[in-house]
């Protein structure tokens, strides 16, 4: 009984959540294929999806390996940038002086164009993994900082007063109230920063790459090899989608108590 219900639930979820976007994607690819052959678009301008898919299946291991490098660099950068942002947010959430002093610096980091920073980082750090991690970290830093700061401050005033009426220490208020209150904000930040970190890693590879999808795209672009270029972009997209799905599932599981995870009705 329970088993049957579970299977039915999974089927229902598949029909509700997986089928519609899959149909939309297939239709889009088909229209693209038809358009390219109908208008006789040159392959060095836009390749037909069939050519891209064919290119991918010639060397799937190659694409996945390069994608793995990019994902690895993006993840390390994301972790570094988020850790730094959260540490700073803790400081700023507790002291307005710290906020006034440090926030302008954070804005400088935010508004500096990545494309301008990347060459400087190559000069500073050479061609290794370090510049990619740093670019990814720089991109994930600001959204995490702002969200963590808001989250740490957005505590239920009654719960805060209740804890204070029991003479709770600031440390206890932090762990029992502020940190859990901030988790929905951190999840929201993560959904923005993970794709940003991927973009950062790709752009850094483009400039300083010895490996990764950014380099694949760069080389393919120089050779007018559009099927390889699009296949690399496709791998990047699939990586981004997978990350988003995992984050959403994790969010539903961990933040079941938060209204954002409940259905609209």
């Amino acid at each position, binding site marked *: 009984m329970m088993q049957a219900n579970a299977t039915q639930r999974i089927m229902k979820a598949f029909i509700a959540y997986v089928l519609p976007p899959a149909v939309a994607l297939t239709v889009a690819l088909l229209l693209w294929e038809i358009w390219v052959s109908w208008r006789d678009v040159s392959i060095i301008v836009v390749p037909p999806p069939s050519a891209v898919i064919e290119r991918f299946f010639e060397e799937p291991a190659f694409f996945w390996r390069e994608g793995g490098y990019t994902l690895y660099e993006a993840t390390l950068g994301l972790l570094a940038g988020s850790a730094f942002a959260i540490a700073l947010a803790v400081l700023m959430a507790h002291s307005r002086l710290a906020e006034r002093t440090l926030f302008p610096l954070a804005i400088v980091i935010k508004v500096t164009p990545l494309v301008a920073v990347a060459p400087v980082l190559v000069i500073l750090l050479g061609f290794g993994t370090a510049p990619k991690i740093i670019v990814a970290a720089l991109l994930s830093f600001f959204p995490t900082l702002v969200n963590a700061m808001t989250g740490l401050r957005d505590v*239920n*005033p*009654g*719960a805060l*007063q*209740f*804890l*204070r*009426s*029991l*003479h*709770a220490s600031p440390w*206890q208020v932090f762990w*029992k*109230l502020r940190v*859990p209150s901030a988790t929905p904000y951190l999840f929201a930040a993560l959904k923005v920063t993970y794709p940003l970190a991927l973009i950062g890693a790709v752009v850094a590879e483009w400039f300083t790459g010895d490996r990764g999808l950014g380099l694949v795209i760069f080389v393919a672009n120089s050779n007018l090899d559009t099927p390889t270029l699009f296949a690399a972009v496709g791998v990047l997209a699939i990586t981004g989608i997978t990350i988003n799905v995992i984050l959403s599932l994790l969010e539903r599981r961990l933040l*079941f*108590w*938060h*209204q954002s995870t*409940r259905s609209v009705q």
Partner: protein
Amino acid sequence: MASSQYHVSLRDLSHVFTDGRQPLRALAAVSLDMPPGQFTSVIGPSGCGKSTLLRITAGLLRPSGGQALIHGRPPQQAQRARDIGFVFQDPALLPWRTVLGNVRLPLEIDSLHRSRPLPDTEELLHIVGLADFRGYYPHQLSGGMQQRAAIARALCFNPSLLLMDEPFGALDEITRSAMRYELLRLWEAQAPSATLAPSGRKTVLFVTHSIAEAITLSDRVIVLSRRPGSLRADIEVELPRPRTQEIERSQPFLDYADHLRDLLTEVPL
């Protein structure tokens, strides 16, 4: 000082909020002495400083003038002894914790249990009628049930002083009335006490907008004037206990209600 014969003593309390654009005088020279085991309600127009009074009593806010004493000492002493229970209009439960987890929260704040004997949280949930809901999360409960959990949480360390800031203000009328009599049942179940036996009735300071609530529950009703709040009337409610719903139809009750209504509408602008 002889003040320790009172559980709570407020001396010439005044408060001015200075964090706004212009200073806001919330309280003006309020004095009040509460003997142990007394149920006192504070009633007054909106913004008359009722909540401010409660927060000062709990030691959450330092008054601009005067002082609040609990057992003749600053409220921080009572905080440290975990001898204050606070209930707000918003139940303010932690949404990521179950009912039981919320009720046990105070135990984690005083993890060594230095202050008081270990409470029986299961018994507490039973008393407030949530024994079957211990594993539920706040969003799965009705407003009235959430407020019961908040009351159980405030009672966790069996404090001798209970501060309640419009605890039933956000509930619908029917639930609100039911909760009134439940609180009454809880409080009257304990023996009246002139001294501070831990099993005796708690001293309760109860802020409300509702005249019926104030009369039904209280031994004494304090009427505050408009902002800045000052003491307008101090009325002993001499209705027999235990009180039941019948009391709201009795003549003395209606007389008290009329009297209070007059006081509240006469409040000069």
